[in-house]
């Protein structure tokens, strides 16, 4: 069972994502801001990190860069989930090292489908690199 770290400052949405992913059968660890997310990533070594962009203390972009800067966590795929959907913002997210940029609002089906796809792609890569 894959473990997913989510970071979202809005409690309602954090819970929504948690329920959704739990319902889809994933183990979920959640953080309320970017700093916490970076610490939890190192501690929990999740299979995927789902980051909101606009968060207190540390933005999603910064958290993503920090995760990618650490040798131990840099292999973990990062996906953004944001209400900010302008080209410049999406570009900033991809430059920070994310593999995907999802827009709010989202439907639970959409979210689980995207998460599934990213996990499948990365486990494939991991398997092939092990070989």
């Amino acid at each position, binding site marked *: 069972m894959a473990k997913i770290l989510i970071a979202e400052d*809005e409690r*309602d*949405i954090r819970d*929504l*994502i948690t*329920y*959704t992913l739990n*319902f889809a059968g994933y183990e979920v660890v959640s953080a309320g801001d970017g700093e916490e997310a970076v610490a939890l990533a190192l501690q929990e070594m999740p299979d995927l990190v789902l980051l909101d962009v606009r968060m207190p203390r540390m933005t999603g972009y910064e958290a993503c860069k920090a995760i990618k800067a650490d040798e131990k966590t840099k292999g973990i795929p990062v996906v953004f989930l944001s*209400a*900010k*959907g*302008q080209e410049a913002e999406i570009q900033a997210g991809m430059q920070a090292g994310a593999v995907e940029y999802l*827009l*709010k*609002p*989202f*439907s*639970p*089906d959409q979210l689980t489908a995207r998460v599934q796809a990213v996990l499948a792609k990365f486990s494939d890569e991991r398997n092939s690199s092990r070989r």
Partner: protein
Amino acid sequence: MSLGQSALVGIGLLLTGIVIVLLVRASLRFAHASNAHLVPELEQRVAERTAELAREKHNTETLLRVLGEVSASLDLDRALNRTLALLNEVIGAEQGSILLINAEDNTIHYRAGYGYMMPSITGGAKPTTLKIGEGLAGWVIKNRQAALITDVRQDERWMELPVKSPYQRNVIAAPLAVGEDVIGVIMVFHHTTGFFTPENMNMVQAIGSQVAVAINNAQLYELIRDQAERLGNMLRNQQVEASRQKAILEAVADGVLVTDANNEINFVNSSAEQILGLKAETTIGQSLDNFVGLFGKATQTWTQTIRAWSEDPTSYQPGDTYAEQLNLENERVVLVHLAPVIWRNEFLGTVSIFRDITHEVEVDQLKSEFVATVSHELRTPMTSIKGYADLLLMGAAGALNEKQTHFLEIVSSNTERLSILVNDLLDLSRIEAGRVSLSLQPLDLREVAESAMGEVTRRSQVEKKEMDLKLDAPPDLPRVYGDLERVHQILSNLLDNAYRYTPEKGHIIVHLEKVEGEVQVDMMDNGVGIAPEDQGRIFERFFRGENPLVLATPGTGLGLPIVKQLVNMHKGRIWMKSTGIAGEGSTFSFTLPLYQAKE
């Protein structure tokens, strides 16, 4: 008198030297040869000759004085009056007059008179106007010769005034001739018949030719003076007009910059100085090229257009203008409108109008930022509403009965609708603010249409709303020049409308065809159609008309405005046709420019 006389003899001797010498020798011979009775005769002849010479001298002097008088004065009337006065004095005339031919109507007019004591002498009436050949004056002009009339009452050429003048009996009339032209007549009068001598006539004739030259000169002078005055007035008027026009240009709130045919700056008003950050005194007369660096990169196309026009005025097509928004290096945003100045097919230069829209752009930016913020703020609560409703629908919180499911579906689909509205609003505001740039590339429209139609087909399968979709395109359709994502959006939006406003089992036909320089897309459906009275507003924001069949279908009223903006950005055209009758549907058409491979 004696001193004058001796001097006079000397001049006479000089003038007629040969004759005098012979005369004296002859006298000496007579003196030797014969007796004393010859001496008085001789003396008498010398005296006669002396008197003759004195008269000639006097005449010459008079002529000189007249000449001096008429040539010294550029005031013609004064000169003529003086001439007549002198003439009267010299030959003892009582009256004199000068009549001139009026070139305009070729009649003889009274011009100057001397010695008329009372107006009643001329009969109280205005001096008569004569035709050429009429009266004595007319005869003299016509025959170009002088006349001495002993008594006018005995001469048929004389035309008597209504009141007979007792002062005008004896007359001399002489033509005023300049070369071949006779310009008038000079006349002197005496009340005594036979008063004037033929010698007097010669004198009047001689003076006449002098006066004629003077009049001619004076008329020429007048002509030149009039001409000069007229030119002066014209120049002054032009200066006044030019200053007025300059003042108008100066008063215009927009910046005005004028260049001439050599690409030199001719005029800059104070608004232009302010907007461009220039000083007129250092700008005018300079070549525009000197300022290219100053305005920064943004103005390159503007200056290039001006140069292209001035170098090759034929490159200008009637109706060609150029307008661009410039982001200057001094952080001002300026709208420039450039037009050539053509006068009678001649390229005179260009005029550029600058409007500082920095403030408007800032306001627009604030508006876009506001819309962006609002949409972002709306998305967060929408995420929760939609997410939790969907979670419930998925049974994440336990099984639902039919009614609960139905209600939650309504919540979810309306949140979806709200989400589309927010996205469209944001998209439209960004397009309108000019923040969307196209990445143009050659596109196969058939492929894009197939992809967009595939989405509608899938949707119709999911929603179980049967729809017959058909693509009708020639195999050799040339590629268009467009932004893949945005062209896809155009087709999707139009297909989405066609799908939504066409009932089940309807059909949608997409027809692609090459027309002049473009590919035309026609999208026909057999849906509810659009009433003719609504068609003019169909591309307006939030306009959805009054048709209940339309309003029953969810929609934002933003789809078509976005499509129109996007088509315009591609330099294409968009229009629609519909009878407005349900079942006959509507046809939306747009064009995209063909891709021109660069050589």
